[in-house]
C-alpha cells in the first residue's frame, strides 16, 4: 500500500524504447500503462467474500496517429524479447486497408512535461483479517437491530491505482487510492420485502469503516420505514432534492450533454447553448478531477492530459464543456483532462469525473417550509442520459411527503422523475447554503457500456419535476 507499482517501474525502460521505435513510423505515439489492484470485501448473513476488485487491470494501450487516423493496440505482455511483436501488431493494424471515409482529425499536440504524482491512503492501515472482522461487526449489528431484518450486508472496496503515461513529450506517473464502503439491509413483514442501502467514497479506510456502523443503522431504519411506502401518484410536484439527487440531476440530466465527444458527433444540443442562459443566475456547476476531492479525483487522465476544474455553468450561463484529447484535436481546443477508459482494453471517451452544483444562499429549513405540497427526494438509484434531446430519467429510492412546509411522515418509493432538462434547470428556485459531500459510490456508463467510477453531488435544490 502507498507505493507506485513496481511492475510498471520495471516496464518503463521497455515502454520508452517502444515509443522511440514507433516514432520512426508515426507522427504521434503514446502508451498508457496501468496497474490497478484492489479487493472487494463483503459480508452478509450467509457469506463472506474477499474477491479481486472488478476493476483490477494490468496492461498497456498504445495509441498512434498516421494518415488522418488514430489507432490503438491493447496488450498485457511486453519485454525486450516481445517488443518487436508489439510493434509488428501495431503496424499490421495500421496497414489494414480502409475502405470507408476517414474523419481525418488533426494530430494531437502535447506540451512537454515530466512529473510524478502521489496521493496516499489516509488513516490507519488494516490487514485483510482486520477488515473482515470489522465488517462482521457491522453485519452483526445490522442483523441485531430488528426482528424484521432478513439480511444485512457490509462491504468495502479498497483500490490502489498506478498509471504511467509516456509519449515523446510526456513522462507522467500517478499513484492514488480510494475506498468505497457500503451497507445494504433487507427487511420483511406481512406487508412485503423492502431494502435500503448507502455508500460513499473516501481515501481513509479507517474512517470509512468507522462510518459504516451509523450507515447500517440508518439503512435498517429506512428499510423498515419503506415497508409502509406507497407509490407516488403520478403528477408534477415541487421537490427538494437531497445532495445525492442533486448530483444525479447534475450528472445524468445535464453533465452527459457537456461531454464534448458528443459535440464531434453532433449529438449534443448543448452546442447551441454555449455562452447562453440555461438556468437562473443562482446556479453554478462544476466537473473535474481537480474540482473537489472524491473517487474520481486523479492527477492526469488516461490520455496524459492534466486534471482540471471546469465550471460548466457560471451564474446560469453555459460556460464550458469537458473534453478528451482526440475530440479536442478535432474541435481544435485544449483537452480538460476528462479522457477516461474503463480499462486499458477499452477506448477512451470524454467522461465526467466529480460533478456537482455549488451551494447557494438558502437555509434548507426555509426551503422545506416554502413547499406547499411536494416531496423531499433522497437516495440515488439510477439515471439515463439523453444529450441530444435533453430528456430526463432519474430514479430515487424514496421521497418524503411535505404538506404546508412540514413533513407528514408519509413515504413514497420508488420515485421515477422525468421531464426536460431546461425546464428542470429553469425551475430551480432555491439552493441550500449548507455544506455537502460529493459522494462517490457509483459507476457511470456511456450508453450501456464503458463503466468508470464517478462522484456527484451538490447543495439541496428546490425545483419542479414530473414524477410518475
Amino acid at each position: 500500500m502507498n507505493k507506485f507499482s513496481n511492475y510498471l517501474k520495471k516496464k518503463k525502460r521497455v515502454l520508452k524504447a517502444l515509443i522511440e521505435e514507433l516514432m520512426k513510423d508515426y507522427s504521434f505515439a503514446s502508451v498508457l500503462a496501468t496497474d490497478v489492484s484492489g479487493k472487494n470485501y463483503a459480508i452478509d448473513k450467509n457469506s463472506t467474500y474477499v474477491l479481486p476488485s472488478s476493476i483490477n487491470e494490468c496492461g498497456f494501450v498504445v495509441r498512434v496517429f498516421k494518415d488522418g487516423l488514430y489507432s490503438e493496440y491493447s496488450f498485457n505482455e511486453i519485454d525486450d524479447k516481445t517488443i518487436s511483436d508489439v510493434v509488428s501488431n501495431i503496424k499490421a493494424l495500421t496497414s489494414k486497408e480502409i475502405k470507408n471515409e476517414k474523419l481525418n482529425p488533426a494530430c494531437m499536440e502535447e506540451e512537454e512535461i515530466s512529473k510524478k504524482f502521489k496521493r496516499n491512503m489516509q488513516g490507519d492501515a488494516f490487514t485483510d483479517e482486520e477488515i473482515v472482522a470489522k465488517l462482521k461487526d457491522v453485519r452483526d449489528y445490522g442483523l441485531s437491530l430488528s426482528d424484521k431484518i432478513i439480511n444485512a450486508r457490509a462491504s468495502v472496496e479498497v483500490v490502489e491505482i498506478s498509471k504511467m503515461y509516456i509519449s515523446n513529450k510526456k513522462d507522467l506517473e500517478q499513484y492514488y487510492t480510494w475506498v468505497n464502503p457500503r451497507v445494504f439491509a433487507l427487511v420483511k413483514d406481512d406487508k412485503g420485502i423492502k431494502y435500503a442501502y448507502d455508500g460513499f467514497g473516501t481515501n481513509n479506510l479507517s474512517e470509512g469503516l468507522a462510518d459504516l456502523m451509523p450507515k447500517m443503522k440508518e439503512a435498517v431504519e429506512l428499510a423498515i420505514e419503506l415497508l409502509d411506502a406507497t407509490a407516488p401518484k403520478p403528477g408534477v410536484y415541487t421537490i427538494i432534492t437531497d445532495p445525492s439527487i442533486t448530483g444525479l440531476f447534475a450528472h445524468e440530466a445535464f453533465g452527459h450533454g457537456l461531454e464534448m465527444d458528443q459535440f464531434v458527433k453532433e449529438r449534443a444540443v448543448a452546442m447551441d447553448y454555449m455562452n447562453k442562459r440555461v438556468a437562473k443566475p443562482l446556479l453554478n456547476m462544476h466537473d473535474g478531477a481537480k474540482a473537489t476531492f472524491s473517487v474520481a479525483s486523479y492527477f492526469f487522465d488516461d490520455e496524459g492530459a492534466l486534471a482540471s476544474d471546469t465550471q460548466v455553468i457560471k451564474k446560469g450561463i453555459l460556460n464550458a464543456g469537458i473534453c478528451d484529447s482526440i475530440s479536442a484535436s478535432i474541435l481544435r481546443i485544449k483537452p480538460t483532462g476528462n479522457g477516461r477508459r474503463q480499462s486499458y482494453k477499452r477506448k477512451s471517451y470524454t467522461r465526467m469525473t466529480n460533478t456537482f452544483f455549488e451551494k447557494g444562499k438558502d437555509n434548507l429549513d426555509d426551503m422545506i417550509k416554502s413547499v406547499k405540497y411536494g416531496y423531499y427526494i433522497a437516495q440515488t438509484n439510477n439515471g439515463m442520459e439523453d444529450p441530444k434531446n435533453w430528456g430526463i430519467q432519474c430514479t430515487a429510492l424514496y421521497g418524503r411527503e411535505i404538506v404546508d412546509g412540514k413533513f407528514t411522515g408519509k413515504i413514497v418509493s420508488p420515485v421515477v422523475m422525468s421531464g426536460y432538462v431546461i425546464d428542470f434547470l429553469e425551475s430551480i428556485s432555491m439552493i441550500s447554503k449548507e455544506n455537502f459531500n460529493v459522494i462517490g459510490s457509483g459507476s457511470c456508463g456511456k450508453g450501456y457500456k464503458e463503466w468508470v467510477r464517478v462522484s456527484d453531488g451538490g447543495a439541496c435544490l428546490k425545483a419542479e419535476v414530473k414524477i410518475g
Partner: protein
Amino acid sequence: MMKINAIIKELKKYDKITDFAIKELKTSTFEQFYDLQKLETTRMTNTSETNVRIYTKALKGDKTLLGNASFDISHKISKSELDKLIEDAIYQASFVENEFYELVEGTKKLSFKQNDEEKDPFEILQEIASIYFNAGRDNASFNALECFYNQYETHLVTSRGVDYKNKKHKIMVEAIPSYNANSGKRLDNCELYRMNEYETYDEAKIKEDACNAISDVLNRSKALKFNNHMNVNVIIKEKDILNMLEELIVTYDYSSVYSKSNFHKIGDEIQTNPKNPLNLSLIPSSKGDYFDSDGVLLKEAKIINNGKLESYYGNNRFAYYLGIKPTGNLQTIKVTKGKKAYLDMLKKPYIEILDLSGIQVDLFADYIGGEVRLANYFDGKDTYPITAFSFSGSLKKCIDELELSKEMTKIPYYVGPKYALLKDFEII
C-alpha cells in the same frame, strides 16, 4: 503467461489447499469507431488473463467450513511470485470461510469451438458500417457508430476433474440513429440509442436492424410531445420484456431462497387467475455457453409453469445448502408463445413503446414504468408517434393480466414472444 499445468504443479505443493479452480481467458478484439459516418479510430486488443481460486476445508468446533480466496494473473510471473500469491491466498482463506459445500465434479474433457467467420474481422466491421450508412435516408443517418468483433477463448480446469473449453466470437454494434432537421436548429434534431449483438455475421439481420433504427428515428422526428394524463394499454417489446421478466424471477435464485427473501415457494401462483399463464425457462445463451464458472454443465431449467413457480435456480454452492441440484448460472430467458396475435393487440386504444430511456422495474416496490422516448399511440381512430411522457403501474397487476404475442423473437438473453400487452397503465 504461465500455463495452467505449471500453476497446478505449484498449487499441489501446498497441503492446505484442498481444491482449486483455474480459469484462463484469452481475448482478441477488433474495433472501429465512426463519428458522422467517418472513421475516427481503429482498435485491436490481444490479452490473456488467468483467475485462480483456492479452497481450504477446515473443522472449527463442530462445524466444517470451506475457506476460499482467489487472485488474478495478468502477465508473466516467476515461480516465486506465484508462490507468494498462493501463500497470501491460503492466509486469506483461513478467515474468509463459509459453510461447507461440495464442489462440482467434472465429467470427461469437453470442448466447443464456434466456426470462424470466412472474412477478416476488420473487413466484416467495414461492411457492417457500410450496411448501416447505406440505410440512411430522409435526413436520417448514424451520427455515431461503433463496431466490435470480439473473440473469446475460455478454459476452466478444477481439482475435481472439470476440464472444459470454449472458443466463440460475437459481433456488437452500438448505433446512434439521428435525424438532422432541415431547419438547422439542433433542438429540432433527435436521436435514439441502439445496441445490437450478433452471434455470427448475418448481413440480412444487420441490414434489418439498421433500417429499423432509421425508421424509428424518423418516427421520433415526427413525434408529438404527449401531455395527456390518462390510462391505456401499453405494448412493450423484446428487450423491455426481458428486463421485466428478469426482475420477476430475481428472488427465485437459490441464494435468495436460502436467506428466505424469495417472494414465492414452489407451487405458488405467481400470476393470480391468469387468462394467459406464463411458461418461463432459463437456458444456456448459446451452444458455446455450456458450463458456468463453477463447472456446472448447463441445460434448460423450467422456472414458471402455467403461471406457477415450478423450480428455483442457482449456483452450485447454494444448491448444496438447499440439498437440490444446481442449475448453474443460466443467463437466457425462454418464454413460450403467447395466444394473441400482434395485430389483435392493436385493435383497442394502445401505446406501443418503441424506445425507453431504460425500463424501471422494482419487484420489491411493485413498480414498473419509465420515461418514454418514442411510442406509437392509437386513440381508437388514428395512430401517431408520441414522445416525452412516462408510464407506470403495478408489476403484480401487470403480470397477472399479461398477454403475450404469438409472434416470437430471439435477441441476446431472450427467446420468446416479441410483444407483451400490459393492461391499463397510467400515462403522464
